């Protein structure tokens, strides 16, 4: 008897599944609106708009576009441990609804943007931190290692204990770029300085929104006598900055945005020496403008020090006394005299 009911249940479930899959003809793209020109579709990486760092830089670009170009902006955010399917769906729903350009913020979108772009040849796509593989995709990458080199110079000039450290969010190729530049910057300035390097996570993108872990790590580094900590870890960076601000004489170096100017970090700004700024906002704004002007940017675009794609923040005036050193290093990079490695 039990066997019969179980079999029946199994059969019904299978049949129901088969029916729903085949019978329902309409797909979501058939019924969607789909008219063009609804504005900008922006898909954030984990951490969301208010990460005070990377995503926020992109958001500033769209905010400016809103004001200056009068475009509408739709924002969506990635969750932790997402799969490709989820990212593809997010981008597809934006493109389907008629948003143009559709921008993925973060290298996590690298694959999905290029895949979805194939299905929407008339829409311009943009991806920050990843390359372009399709005709209608703009792959916007930055010379993070160059900016990191400069903050490394600043760190080397400011440290008293001759020990500085680096915290990366996730041990991947992108964040290693930050590490490589920073370490080189420090060593070129003073080879005797010790640089402690550590990553929050080996492979999970949780590293970009786990401020608690960054805080713990920073605490350990401070305890071991490091007095300048550069954190390249998106939203997690706030945790490290908070911890550094508790210790007198220690400096935190921010990343991606000018973190001294971040509202959410106002309380700790006295400890933010400088930031390795990635002008994601400029890149995002330029892309939106190019689409608005009907001359969409596509292909691989690199934003380096020479093109003002990356820079060093001077807010707070904490590095005014060493400005000459930083400027000199900056000029050397721009002239090609110093080659900053992008891998550690």
């Amino acid at each position, binding site marked *: 008897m039990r066997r019969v009911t179980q079999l029946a249940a199994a059969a019904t479930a299978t049949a129901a599944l088969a029916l*729903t899959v085949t019978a329902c003809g309409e797909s979501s*793209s058939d019924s969607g609106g789909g008219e063009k020109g609804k504005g900008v579709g922006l898909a954030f990486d984990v951490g969301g708009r208010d990460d005070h760092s990377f995503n926020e830089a992109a958001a500033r670009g769209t905010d400016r576009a809103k004001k200056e170009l009068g475009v509408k902006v739709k924002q969506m955010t990635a*969750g932790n441990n997402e799969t490709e399917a989820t990212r593809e769906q997010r981008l597809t*729903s934006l493109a389907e609804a008629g948003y143009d350009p559709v921008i993925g913020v973060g290298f996590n979108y690298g*694959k999905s943007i290029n895949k979805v772009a194939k299905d929407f040849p008339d829409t311009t796509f943009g991806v920050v931190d990843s390359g372009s593989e399709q005709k209608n995709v703009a792959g916007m990458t930055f010379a993070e290692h160059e900016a990191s080199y400069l903050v490394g110079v600043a760190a080397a000039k400011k440290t008293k204990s001759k020990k500085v450290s680096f915290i990366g969010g996730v041990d*991947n190729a992108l964040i290693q770029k930050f590490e490589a530049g920073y370490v080189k910057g420090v060593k070129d300035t003073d080879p005797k300085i010790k640089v402690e390097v550590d990553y929050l996570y080996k492979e999970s993108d949780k590293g970009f929104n786990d401020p608690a872990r960054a805080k713990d790590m920073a605490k350990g580094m401070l305890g071991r006598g490091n007095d300048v900590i550069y954190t390249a870890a998106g939203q997690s960076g706030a945790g490290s900055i908070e911890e550094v601000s508790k210790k007198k004489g220690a400096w935190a170096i921010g990343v991606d945005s000018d973190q001294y100017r971040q509202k959410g970090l106002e309380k700790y700004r006295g400890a933010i020496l400088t930031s390795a700024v990635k002008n994601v906002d400029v890149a995002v704004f330029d892309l939106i403008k190019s689409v608005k002007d009907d001359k969409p940017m596509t292909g691989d675009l690199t934003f380096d020090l020479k093109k003002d794609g990356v820079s060093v923040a001077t807010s707070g005036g904490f590095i005014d006394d060493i400005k000459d050193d930083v400027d000199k290093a900056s000029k050397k990079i721009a002239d090609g005299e110093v080659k900053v490695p992008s891998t550690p």
Partner: protein
Amino acid sequence: MNDLGETPEQRALHRHLEDRYWLRLRGRFSKEKLILALAAPVLAIVAALVLSSLVIAASGKDPLHAFSVMIDFGSKSDSQVWIVNKAIPYYLSAAAVAIGFRMKLFNIGVDGQYRVAAFFAAAVGGALALPGAIQIPIIILTAMAVGAVWAGIAGVLKTTRGVSEVITTIMLNSIAGSLIGYFLSEDKLAVKDGNLFHTTNLPDSSHFFTIPTDPKPIYGTIVIAIAVGLAYWFVLGRTRFGFDLRAVGRSEPAAAASGVSVKRMVVTSMLLSGAVAGLVGMPTLLNVSYNYGTDFPAGIGFTGIAIALLGRNHPIGMALAALLWGFLERTGIRLEFEDYAQEIVEVMQGIIVLCVVIAYETVRRYGLRVQQRKVGEELSARAAGTNDKPEVSA
């Protein structure tokens, strides 16, 4: 009892009636059992709907509109394909967890097991270039073997050293992450591709088939999930091994007393659980990514725990739960698109699991109480009936 003044025939009739009465009573219990069995899921669904509505309403949005968006979008054909594809690894993960659950083993290490398994399977697959008919089984078997070994460590530690599998499996998760991170670098088993590191791509021959549906295909790896579901049902429900396993889960001393080697069962079921966990990464590896990279999905092992709980460790229940999960995730992105908070769906998933667990426990306790009361009543009525009999028959 002859002093009641009954003839033997009367007594026989009495007995017969009494027996029939008890049979009827038992019958009524099983009917009630059916009602109770239905009550639990219904209660859970209603409670989950009410609570989710409250949460959505509290965030200042219209819950009814949210549900209609979800149903409307979730029933589109492309959504259904997406949901089925998403449910495949979830189901495999739930089955892996459930094997442990059935004998009260809490394998929370499925996450690490499937990642290590998928990684080494991808590395092996990337290094070989054999015809698909040979290569695909090699990849799958590698994954199962690696998953089994990884879970087996916890099983052996439990039986030889008495370390709780909860501790070991969760630690092995983090060791798995570090191990993969160690090998996923350019000078070891990985190639660099933009910002990603991944293993060498599998040759085209190792791509699993897909079932063509419109507009996107369903992953062929669904057959693996179905096979695992059938094997799970058969082995646990229809074999001596399955009986022993469940017996250990019910009561270790009782099982040991009846001749089951508890230690062997612990190791065997951890190995089995790990082998199934090894399959979790296969739909992604063989149907989507064709390599293991830094972007390989993580966390499915934990989703599996929720789905096993939701599906009550039942092969069909877990399938429905996995599909429900896929549905919620698919429609969740749509909800975000409609300006609902992105977290709503995660809250809903949590509420549903809680409601199901609580509803089943409540209904079970209620059923037990009713049964106890009934039996008590019947027994006292029966006792009273025997005493009254002389007067009645007089």
